[in-house]
């Protein structure tokens, strides 16, 4: 074959290869799946990253864990670490963004799936409780005031009590109206906030002159409370898988036990415990 032909063919083949290699597309997965938005996806990623950084991984190992939501509740000691309270606030803010996005009207309104909305409510309920327990535990630095532990290893929720030293101090107080003074202002604020976060309850020292008297979480992003979110989660899971609703109803019942216990304790510590008129 003459050299001219070889050069001719080589040039032709080379130009063809260059032509066809230049226009090739890379396949890309859609950034956002149907039933979500970019804002919701980004917000949930931020939530999961923050929870992970706090040592609170709310993950399921297999679908059967759906009926064992108590597995998501960590040992209270995890919530006693130096947790930045701002992180919980930001997580709740981000979860509210997710919920707003999922609840927006879409072609098959609402936009979000039942399971996603149920899970976001479950997350919110859990984070409200974590925030409450964390506030109590980190308020009593340096002396230990609150003891938070599980009633038994199998119990999902926590028994909120006080340390023996604090108990002794309470026993030594003559006037029950002065009981709240055994706690520091920061600890009293934690009691008021924790009950607000769990139950939306209005808790105040019985003696009118003892401060503080107002919840510091009666503001955005704390628009609801743990029990409300757990009930919503149970209701939504009822549409998804009735067995999961039953499991969440059980969890809610034991949460109500914890709430009653906290109500009884706070009243015994000299606080009034009132549910708001809208409940």
């Amino acid at each position, binding site marked *: 074959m003459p050299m001219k032909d070889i050069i001719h063919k080589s040039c032709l083949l080379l130009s063809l290869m260059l032509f*066809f290699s230049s226009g090739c597309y890379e396949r890309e997965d859609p950034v*956002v799946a*149907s*039933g*979500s938005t970019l804002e919701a996806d980004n917000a*949930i990623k931020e939530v999961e990253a923050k929870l992970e950084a706090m040592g609170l991984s709310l993950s399921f190992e297999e*679908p059967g864990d759906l009926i064992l939501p108590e597995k998501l509740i960590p040992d209270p000691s995890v919530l006693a670490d130096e947790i930045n309270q701002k992180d919980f606030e930001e997580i709740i803010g981000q979860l509210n963004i997710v919920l707003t996005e999922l609840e927006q009207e879409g072609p098959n309104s609402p936009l979000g799936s039942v399971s996603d909305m149920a899970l976001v409510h479950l997350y919110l309920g859990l984070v409200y409780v974590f925030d409450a327990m964390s506030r109590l535990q980190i308020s009593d630095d340096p002396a230990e005031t609150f003891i938070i532990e599980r009633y038994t290893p199998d119990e999902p929720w926590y028994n909120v009590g006080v340390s023996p030293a604090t108990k002794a101090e309470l026993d030594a107080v003559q006037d029950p109206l002065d009981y709240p003074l055994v706690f520091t202002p920061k600890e009293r604020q934690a009691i008021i906030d924790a009950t607000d976060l769990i139950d939306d309850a209005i808790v105040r020292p019985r003696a009118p002159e003892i401060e503080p008297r107002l919840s510091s979480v009666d503001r955005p992003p704390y628009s609801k409370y743990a029990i409300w979110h757990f009930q919503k989660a149970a209701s939504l899971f009822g549409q998804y898988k009735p067995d999961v609703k039953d499991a969440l109803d059980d969890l809610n019942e034991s949460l109500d036990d914890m709430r009653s216990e906290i109500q009884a304790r706070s009243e015994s510590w000299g606080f009034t415990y009132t549910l708001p008129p809208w409940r």
Partner: protein
Amino acid sequence: MHIKVFLLKLFCLKKACMSVAASLILIWFFAESSLPASKLFETKILSKKLGGANLPYRGVRPMGMGNVFAAISDDLDAFYYNPAGIAAARKLRISLQPIRFIPTQDFYDELKELDQLVDDIEAINESPKPLEDPDLEDERRRLTQRMKRLIDDDLGLDVASPLRFVVPFHVGDYAVAIGGIAHAWSASQLYVQRRGLDWNDFVKDILDDDLIYDIMAEVSYGGAAAIEVPATTLPLEVSFGLAARRIHRWQMTDRDDPLGIEELINPYGKDGIEGTADDFKERYFDPEDPLAIVSEARGYSIDAGTISWFREIASLGLAFRNVFGKIGDEKLPRGLEVSTALNPARLRKQGLQNLDIILAASSNNETWGSGNIVDRARFGVEVVWNLPSLAISGRAGSNYGYMTLGAGIQLAFLDFDYAFYSDKDVDWHAFSLNLTF
């Protein structure tokens, strides 16, 4: 003498270039046209129940070159791409393709565990408490892992075994060809369609995802006829062809009512009552007898086409798909493909020594009106090295911007082809062995 030869070459080159330029302008016009496809030709998605796979029949050789074949159609794949192509046959040809196997890249890995998937679905489906049953933990975990893998996978399999023949003869000055075709064909897909929030935790992520299956099999038979008419004033030969097929199709798919994890873990439906219409077995399939719900329909399709050849150098093809056609009650989507091909190796009187180089481009009405030229057109090239009783081919192409590659060896009556074919969804590996007599 040299000047005469040179002028003759120049004349041929000019004609070829004009012909190809005219074809390219036509393709460009259609591809760049902002006129919606539906205004020109009715384009309708097939009934999901009967034609969800929506995979057109593809030949392995065309797949290697971007699936551009309507203006080439020089083998018996012309039955599918442009029936006018069979007019080019100069002798009786019978072609049997005992192997035509087109799986997606992910197919092999998943195939060996397909039984396990069905067994797991069956075990979960048989339990009244599939989430609580501790004995099913392994099945639940395996299913979760499987779904996780399937999110990145696209399982598809396209197998067929066509038998085709063409008989050429002359009627006066016209070359005529008639042919017959029969094939058994199956095209199936299985994939996970993601929905909802992008959770880091995979179990939460799949709770609202859907597992889409689409399994189609068909048997079809039919005939084709084409006539080649020489143009009197131009060095052109124009062919017209018509192909008709009777189709018998079976299909099972959940595209209309996708199967999600939610349905898997609620074997008796939301009402929890066994024997009602929302039971898994009623809505989808009985894992013990999954083929019992296959739907069946009969139909037909008629394709038409034309190819204009300028000597053996350039051609312009128009293929009209499903001019008439329906399966069951559903009309098949009509389509128009405009295509052109050029063989620069034939520009020289003697041709390039033993070499054919075919460059081709096409565009069809479904892509008109959106995107740039790469999104709207396909391009392909085939280089064939012809040796005595052996031909070796290399192919490449751009399938609306996605790469395709191919190779073929033709040895006497045996023709083996391979293609790597990308589209916007998946990568396919296609193999075929053709026996042509």
